[in-house]
């Protein structure tokens, strides 16, 4: 049985790798599941759920802006009346280099959290079933489009919901990776091909390094190196201008990840920023 299934899978893969065939194999390189932070749903209170993607060794999936290649993971929700799903709360990504390209994504396991608004009228229900159609691109060196149709059924209870012990730590860890809006102002400037992002030095707070992940194509050259340094009262990250960074562009949106030393390892803190342009930043 197992044998037959793996043959079938190999057959699908081979068939798909030839140009004329239609549907790719689902979930060969990345396993998807839908999990909830709590064991029940409380009417009128938001619920936190996650698309859990577990990629095989060496494989990865993508962030909201995937970088030079790849594709952001998508979730299409089908929910009971009155329920509403928010956008994916993307954890800060890794930088993944492939030849002359740089991508932004996640190796191994990632939780893509989504807040579901639960209507007060849900009290009329015994259980609720959430349906999600997830589409993602799994890549190692090569890429395979994968998808899954997932459902999650939870009991409805007026009592404050209990955390699901199986997932509590994973949700907490995922939340720590989700960028918060930066409480400090940032500016950027362009001079020739150099684009410099500048933050108050106090904001970097002893960070060993800073990484920048743009939210959109063309702001920076993704594959070019980024150089972090302190300059008087500013923390400056020098990068290379992207193809769309013309003189008319006045804002730079992205995620700043600060790397701190802690014990033997590192701790990351991420912030979402929209930097205003000031070419005298350089």
């Amino acid at each position, binding site marked *: 049985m197992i044998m037959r299934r793996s043959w079938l899978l190999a057959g699908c893969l081979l068939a798909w790798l030839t140009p*004329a065939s239609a549907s790719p194999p689902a979930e060969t390189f990345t396993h998807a599941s839908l999990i909830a932070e709590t064991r029940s749903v409380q009417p009128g209170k938001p619920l936190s759920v996650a698309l859990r993607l577990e990629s095989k060794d060496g494989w990865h999936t993508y962030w909201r802006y995937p970088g030079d290649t790849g594709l952001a993971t998508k979730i299409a929700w089908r929910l009971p009346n009155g329920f509403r799903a928010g956008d994916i709360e993307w954890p800060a990504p890794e930088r*993944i280099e492939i030849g002359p390209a740089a*991508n932004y994504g996640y190796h191994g396991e990632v939780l893509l959290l989504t807040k579901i608004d639960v209507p007060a009228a849900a009290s009329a229900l015994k259980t609720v079933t959430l349906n999600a159609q997830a589409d993602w691109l799994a890549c190692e060196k090569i890429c395979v489009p994968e998808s899954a149709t997932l459902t999650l059924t939870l009991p409805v209870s007026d009592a404050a919901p209990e955390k699901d012990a199986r997932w509590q730590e994973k949700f907490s860890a995922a939340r720590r990776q989700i960028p918060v809006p930066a409480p400090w102002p940032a500016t950027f400037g362009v001079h020739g091909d150099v684009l410099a992002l500048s933050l108050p030095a106090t904001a970097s707070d002893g960070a060993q390094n800073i990484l920048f992940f743009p939210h959109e194509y063309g702001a920076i050259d993704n594959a070019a190196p980024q150089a972090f340094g302190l300059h008087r009262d500013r923390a400056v990250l020098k990068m290379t201008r992207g193809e769309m960074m013309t003189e008319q562009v006045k804002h730079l949106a992205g995620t700043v990840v600060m790397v701190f030393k802690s014990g033997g390892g590192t701790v990351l803190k991420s912030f979402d920023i929209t930097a205003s342009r000031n070419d005298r930043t350089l």
Partner: protein
Amino acid sequence: MKIMLFRSVLHGTVFGLIMGFAVLASGTAGAAPAVGKPAPDFTGTDAQGKTHRLADYKGSIVVLEWTNHQCPFVDKHYATGNMQKLQAAARKKGVIWLAVLSSAPGEQGYLEPKEAQALSKKVKAAHTAKILDPKGTVGRLYGARTTPHMYIVDKTGTLVYMGGIDDTPSTDYDDVKTAKNFVTAALDDIAGGTPVKTPVSRPYGCSVKY
């Protein structure tokens, strides 16, 4: 594949390093072609063994299409017939269409000349020629990052478009119907004698398998 963690920089030495970085960065960016500038000249050999030099096509519009038939994004445009349709429509107007295959031997999409010929026949490709670039020379010269990645050179040899084939990054066949095709739009602008309205766009697809 490797994940690059950025080199951390000691605060005391940072400015010397930044100066070094500026030189390095302009070297990287300077190698990439720019819209409005002469398209970098190259000589390539096609699947039939014929040589093509870009400069020899001065007087014609040239489209460059980076390809890899095993990439799901390329598959979207060939399985739906979209790419072949674009190629045929462009060539009918006298456009030279060069597909470029920069996959290295042993990498996804690499084809020997005979295999490349057979594939073109099988998928009814309508390009002028398929340039085989197993060393990635032409690909790197153009900074080609994705398959597909599209470039258009006008009759004077100036690069007038670089970027995606359309505005819908996906592998979904259905999206071909609703996407705005940037290559068609650029060729129409050129034919109408107006500057290309979208001269640069986001290329999307698989990485080029150099």
